[in-house]
């Protein structure tokens, strides 16, 4: 293997990993703190990208891409907050909240996905890149937008991690997910934090969608594949740890790139699944989850 191919694999792995980290962290935020699996996370990505497209593309309002980013994120935050109100809050105290919200968020996913198709149609669209052009990274040419993702992802992850670990609200969010009543008793506003968490996660989804929307192509089902990937990464990384999620993202990204090179793109996804199953056989608590019994 030459240095060139090695760097190509590495770069493509880092790009993939960064994308995965962005997608998975928003999902993991809601899941590991509130114990809710948000099936609509992927479609929130899609929505953010479409709104940004409408604002910034020539076929829409034709404004500056920055305006698209801002409006896209704001709109999706609004939807996230609405979601929390309508399909999560009514089930707070339900013992089966996990299963019920699987259903309600799945319903929201269907609703938004079909809604997007109604509004924007099914034809492919593409967002203007925030960063146009190409750059050289570790001896491999990639688009500047991908470079942007490589840079933004770790910064966001570190910020998010620090926020959850150290900030008052961040710690509160973690507490609320583990025991809402105990959290109330120390003066944490549980419903406010649910909202904050959903809003934060929605913002991450929108940003991911917008960043990815100029690298990939937009369709109403744009978010479906990322959702599945994120699901796998969040579980694999070990629940309840943002660090684990991020590490798993990059690990799987690089692994995927390497596997594509070694055994081809056809069998690479299956190979990853096989590896996942094997790893879970030996580490039933996920890759980075702690064993506690």
């Amino acid at each position: 293997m030459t240095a060139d191919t090695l760097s190509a694999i590495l770069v493509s792995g880092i790009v993939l990993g960064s994308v995965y980290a962005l997608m998975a962290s928003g999902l993991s935020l809601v899941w590991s703190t509130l114990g809710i699996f948000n099936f609509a996370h992927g479609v929130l990505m899609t929505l953010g990208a479409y709104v940004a497209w409408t604002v910034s593309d020539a076929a829409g309002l034709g404004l500056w891409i920055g305006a698209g980013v801002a409006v896209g994120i704001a709109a999706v935050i609004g939807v996230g907050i609405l979601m929390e109100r309508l399909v999560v809050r009514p089930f707070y105290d339900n013992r089966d909240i996990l299963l019920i919200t699987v259903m309600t968020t799945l319903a929201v996913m269907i609703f938004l996905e079909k809604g997007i198709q109604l509004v924007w149609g099914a034809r492919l669209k593409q967002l203007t890149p925030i960063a146009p052009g190409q750059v050289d990274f570790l001896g491999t040419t990639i688009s500047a937008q991908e470079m942007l993702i490589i840079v933004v992802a770790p910064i966001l992850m570190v910020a998010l991690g620090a926020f959850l670990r150290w900030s008052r609200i961040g710690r509160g969010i973690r507490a609320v997910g583990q025991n809402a009543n105990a959290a109330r008793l120390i003066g944490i506003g549980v419903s406010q934090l649910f909202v904050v968490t959903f809003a934060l996660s929605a913002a991450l989804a929108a940003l991911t969608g917008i960043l990815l929307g100029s690298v990939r192509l937009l369709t109403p089902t744009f978010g479906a594949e990322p959702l599945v990937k994120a699901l796998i990464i969040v579980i694999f990384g070990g629940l309840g740890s943002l660090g684990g999620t991020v590490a798993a993202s990059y690990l799987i990204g690089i692994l995927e790139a390497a596997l594509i090179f070694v055994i081809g793109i056809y069998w690479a996804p299956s190979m990853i699944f096989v590896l996942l199953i094997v790893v879970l056989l030996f580490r039933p608590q996920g890759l980075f989850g702690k064993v506690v019994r």
Partner: protein
Amino acid sequence: MSDAENALDVVELRAGYDAYDVLQGISIHVGPGERVGLFGPNGHGKTTLLNAISKIIPQRRGEVRFLGEPLGGLSAKQIVERGLIHVAQANHLFPDMEILETLELAAYTRRAHSQRAKNLDYVLKLFPRLAERRRQQCKTLSGGERQMLSIGVGLMCAPRMLMLDEPTLGLSPKLKDELAAAIDEISSQRMPLLLVEQDITFVLSLVDRMYLVDHGEIIREIDRRSGVDHDEIMDMYFGGHEAR
């Protein structure tokens, strides 16, 4: 009976779960700096009363005032901000958080935050075991250790009044004594106290006055100064089925 001086007034409170009321219009009060016990058989609404006061469950009818201020319009969070702290029964706290992290988090309100260092010192001194294990996750604690942490969390909230629900659950005899001494010390600084407890000796060693609860109602009020002892109370309650 109640006046603005009282720490806590509960008037004709009704609350419960689902379609039925556990509390059928209960009234109690805690005077300024007073230590009051709630005693009664299992499952008769003591915990429900505390839950309703701290708004873990809604107050359906009646009124609750803390330091003269009605709590009706306040949220659980605002009640904690006022300094009315409820240490829940058998609280499992935050399973994945470490002890120290939990204690630090507990000083969540602005007021509690400002006293964080002082209170943390106090708690860790009171329960040295917690200091030893500061990095251990809550879900791996032993029953007694978890109870210590629950009380510690309550203290970290900078209470102006404490409501303790069965604080001695699962504590060793020695620790019970130490806890009694600690509660005595805390509340002797005129911190009002509402104590729910099944260990009658423990209650009697601490409170000035106590209520006997039965089927969600107060059936009797006993003033400690009138000199009743626990056998009499047992008699009152259980009609002679006393433990040896």
